[in-house]
């Protein structure tokens, strides 16, 4: 898994060196050189962690510990790793009280930092999932009629497992496996994963079905045939077609070799227009879209058409069930 982090360090050279070293460990890093820029950047993009040198900010800016507290307040799920030349128990405890994930003494041991970054990324996901679950619980327990807009019921995209569009099928499979584990653990999570571009924007979705279809190209031919047929096809006809085409005939070995050449961008599901809904649209509108399109979920966009969440049929149905139960009929 690639982790995406933000480095905050007034020392530009130190930041550049760290960025390069982290690249070797599949950690994608960007750098800013002031606390103010960090506040802006952290709010724009969904970083897995922030690494901040405690000596930044300098001059008239807020001190490092205050910057930490501000960052945490703006982004409660964000995990912040502080770098310092002088770590003692007192300032450590203060940093942790303000929300630091870890405090690392310089000079940095890169392997230890990499480990910490991946732990921070995992912790961020847990934190986001818990927060979303609590918010969902609050919404479901809210008096009937309060959830009127799509944004009241959607799941923010940070709560979804995600994979970058340049990732390999191997990484996609691991991500889907993680997503399934959450379902198995009853966390009420999602079997699908979101596909992100380098700017962490959602560009598509990937499901177990997408992977299976991609591994057997004969499905493409079948899909085209089914799409181009003007009348409905009876089950016997479809069965006979399947017998002729005989998908999955080759041993799995061949198919896995093929998987090595597949790119996520080519196999992901790119949502159709009908699969998008605005965050401020009414629940009624969303129900209509789900029903008419026979969708299991809709991608939720903000006013700038940026994807900010997913509205699941299941969650919407749960909300309706609560309303019906409240009627007492």
């Amino acid at each position: 898994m690639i982790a995406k982090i933000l480095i905050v360090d007034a020392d530009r050279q130190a930041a550049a060196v760290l960025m390069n070293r982290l690249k070797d460990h599949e950690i994608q890093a960007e750098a800013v050189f002031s606390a103010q820029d960090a506040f802006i950047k952290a709010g724009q993009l969904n970083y897995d962690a922030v690494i901040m040198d405690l000596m930044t900010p300098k001059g008239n800016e807020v001190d490092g510990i205050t910057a930490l507290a501000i960052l945490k307040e703006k982004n409660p799920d964000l995990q912040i790793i502080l770098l310092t030349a002088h770590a003692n128990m007192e300032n450590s405890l203060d940093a942790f009280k303000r929300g630091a994930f870890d405090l690392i003494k310089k000079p940095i041991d890169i392997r230890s930092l990499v480990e910490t970054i991946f732990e921070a990324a995992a912790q961020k996901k847990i934190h986001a999932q818990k927060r979303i679950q609590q918010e969902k619980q609050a919404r479901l327990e809210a008096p009937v009629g309060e959830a009127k807009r799509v944004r009241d019921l959607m799941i923010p995209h940070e709560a979804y497992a995600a994979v970058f569009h340049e990732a390999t099928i191997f990484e996609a499979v691991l991500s889907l496996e993680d997503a399934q584990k959450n379902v198995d653990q009853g966390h009420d999570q999602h079997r699908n994963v979101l596909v992100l571009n380098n700017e962490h924007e959602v560009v598509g979705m990937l499901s177990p079905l997408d992977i299976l279809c991609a591994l057997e190209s004969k499905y493409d031919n079948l899909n085209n045939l089914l799409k181009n047929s003007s009348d409905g096809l009876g089950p016997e006809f479809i069965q006979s077609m399947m017998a002729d085409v005989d998908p999955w005939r080759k041993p799995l070995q061949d198919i896995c070799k093929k998987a090595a050449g597949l790119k996520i961008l080519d196999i992901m599901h790119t949502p159709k227009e009908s699969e998008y809904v605005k965050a401020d649209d009414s629940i009624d509108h969303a129900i209509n879209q789900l029903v008419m399109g026979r969708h299991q979920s809709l991608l939720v966009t903000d006013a700038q058409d940026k994807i900010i969440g997913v509205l699941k049929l299941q969650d919407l149905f749960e909300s309706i069930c609560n309303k019906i139960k409240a009627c007492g009929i």
Partner: protein
Amino acid sequence: MAENHRPSETAINLLMVDDEEGYVNVLSKRMSKRGISVTKANSGSEAIQILRRHDFDAALLDLKMEDMDGIEVLKIFKVMAPQMPVIMLTGHGSETTAREGIQYGAYDYLIKPCNLEELIDKIQAACKK
């Protein structure tokens, strides 16, 4: 008489009982930086051996371990160290077992994977009582 194992005035002395070594290592590393000194036990029986020789401010007990049933370990803890608060860690499907643990005297429970901050808050709250 069990030895008092207290490395510093303010540190919380925690006994962590969990057979998932990777998980324990990550947690104890995080906790030690936050003033919680962690003694690790890989199994219920190892934890009992350790508790014979040392006192702890609190214990963190995973309910699903290979060698002994978590509730049995809890019951033994409650006999050996009745004042030591025990926080249980359980998987999402095992909340009933965790609630049973409360009846046997556990302080509270958390569902894995748990939020580190929440876990630390709970340990600190348990030690204040």
